[in-house]
């Protein structure tokens, strides 16, 4: 834990019926940063965030938020966090204003302060005009904006967002990004989970990559991309990779790593374009039926492939 930390996670473990969903994860989140937990579906991100939001109890390990151990005093923690669940956790037959009013009262707001806060938030998410419409008539993106507004009613110090842009149209996604950045500029610490690279790349100051319940990398975007260095990733879909061909590719000087995943092969190598012809020669001469080839420059996707040998989007 450093002096800037607002959240500290130490050796967090969560087991369900013998299956380890979170396996010894530790990290700090600094005050005022946007921190991303990136990983494929089922990696353990939602379990980690659920424990941090006091929804789940960990099997072992410790989480402190603003110095408060969440297992010892979760009630105090819940006062200072705002949570935006992955699903639209609203009442569809109530209006947006009624939903906000209900949750506001749950957070202890009432009277004028509640009314004012609702107006501010409706304005922030751009739905003042539709405030008195039943939520059932809203688009998915509009509902998601109200879903975020609900978490901000009590002006929390820390905002947790679980997959904030899942199932959202590009326009609403842009608005959600703007809202998160605006809140962060105002001093709010944000933790988000995502399997969308775009979320992490556009929003996060630091990114933790999670796979199979473990934290496998944590740094700024630039720091993480440095792990891949100057390499390119060639991603190939083909049938019947002969063992001999894979071995020949691995022996090439430029090739840094070869990962096989069912009918796809990911080859990390320096100067990908120059080496591609040689690789294709090897595969065709060994009788492999190549269906598609993609050369990718370093990004979080290639980093994830580099670290795990599998694609982020499964």
């Amino acid at each position, binding site marked *: 834990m450093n002096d800037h930390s607002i959240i500290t996670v130490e050796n967090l473990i969560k087991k369900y019926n013998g299956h380890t969903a979170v396996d010894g994860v530790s990290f700090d989140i600094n005050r005022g940063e946007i921190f991303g937990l990136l990983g494929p579906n089922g990696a353990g991100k939602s379990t980690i965030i659920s424990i941090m*939001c*006091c*929804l*789940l109890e960990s099997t072992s390990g410790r989480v402190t938020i603003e110095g408060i151990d969440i297992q010892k005093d979760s*009630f105090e923690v*819940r*006062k200072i*966090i705002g*949570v935006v*669940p*992955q*699903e*639209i*956790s*609203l*009442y569809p*037959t*109530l209006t947006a204003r*009624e939903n906000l009013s*209900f*949750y506001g*009262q*749950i*957070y*202890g707001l009432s009277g004028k302060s509640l009314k004012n806060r609702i107006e501010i938030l409706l304005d922030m998410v751009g739905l003042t005009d539709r405030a008195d419409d039943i939520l059932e008539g809203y688009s998915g993106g509009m509902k998601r904006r109200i879903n975020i507004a*609900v978490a901000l009613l009590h002006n929390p110090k820390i905002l947790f967002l679980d997959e904030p842009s899942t199932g959202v149209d590009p326009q609403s996604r842009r608005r959600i990004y703007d809202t998160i950045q605006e809140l962060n500029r105002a001093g709010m610490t944000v933790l988000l989970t995502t399997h969308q690279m775009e979320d992490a790349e556009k929003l996060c100051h630091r990114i933790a990559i999670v796979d199979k319940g473990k934290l496998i990398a944590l740094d700024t975007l630039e720091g993480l991309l440095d792990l891949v260095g100057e390499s390119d990733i060639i991603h190939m879909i083909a049938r019947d990779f002969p063992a001999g061909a894979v071995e020949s590719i691995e022996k090439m000087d430029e090739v840094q790593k070869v990962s096989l995943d069912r009918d796809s092969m990911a080859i990390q190598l320096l100067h990908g374009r120059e080496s591609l012809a040689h690789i294709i020669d090897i595969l065709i001469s060994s009788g492999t039926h190549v269906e598609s080839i993609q050369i990718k420059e370093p990004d979080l996707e290639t980093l994830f492939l580099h670290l795990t040998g599998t694609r982020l989007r499964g």
Partner: protein
Amino acid sequence: MKFHIIAIKDLKIVIRDRNAILLMFFLPMIIISVAGLALGGEFQQNIQIDVLVVDLDNDDISKGLVEFLEDIDILDVDMESNEFAARERVKNQEYGRLVIIPRDFTQSVITGQDSELLIINNPTQESQNTVVEKILEGYASRISTSVVAVKTVAAYGIPVFNEEQILQIVGVAGQFAEPSPVAVISESTTSNLGEFSPFTQYVPGFAVMFLLFTTVQVGSVSLINERESGTLRRLVTAPISKAEIIGGKIASTFTRGFVQLTVLMIFGHYVFNLNLGSDLVALVILIAAITLSATGLGMMVAVLVTTEDQANSISSLLVLTMSAIGGSWWPLFIEPQFMQDMAHFTITAWAMDGFYDLLFFDLGLVGILKEVGMLVLMCVVFFGVAVSKFKFE
């Protein structure tokens, strides 16, 4: 405490739901009306309880008792002069029960002495026997009041010789006491039992059935929806205790059920002249106890199933089974004994017993203590299971 915020939100959602309102109020009103009007004649024929009476006294008060029994619609009273023959007829199951009025019954009453009315029952018809016992207990209770009044007066050395004097004594005593003792005695020669019309059966019967749909089916589905839509998880991450969340759900389901049952009883009273009994406080307590136990059952169903479909099918099965064997569709006492025994594992049977006690026997709060106690006990068991198994995830 914030549970009321959740309860108010839930009620607001229900008020907006036209289907829910239809199911809660209009559908039961239609079914009660149709069943009561269409099946009235059939109903009257089917619920006759036979009683053989031996009047060994054959004096004013015993004759009054016989007339009292004959005036009750659901009783089919026959007289037998020979006690031995009467006992044989009941033993041979020719009659379900025999009432023996002892010799000197009238004399005992007016002279303030203890006496006993004897009922000999066929044990295979327990509920019918209970009906007759309750009728006689109600009558005996009023007669006992007379005896106590006479004994009290006699204790002061004033001799009493006839019923007219008894009534005068009690009338004078009534000036110094609450009005109710006078009222009780003044009704002693006539029936204060309500009429057992088809609506005495169908109003509470269908009202309880639809209450169960509201509390068990709609109540459990509401909780499951809250879990499936993620709103329950969102509430858990807010500064509100789990007890307040569950309390809010219970309060909204209870309020909905209580209003529904009350409205349907008032509907029965004003539209079909249903007798609500003389003790409205007892009626409110009974309605509250029924609703509370039904709410508990709804909560238990909600925690024992995982999906809305499961909740719907299990609730329908439970509600329809309880209604059929518990006495919602026909009087419990016309069912075979084994079904009556099974029925008393259901909310419906205890609810209907309580309604009969108030609407027909007019036994007041004391008369429904057993039923209220059993309903509260069921409620404790249901809530106990629900709370111990409740998962917020």
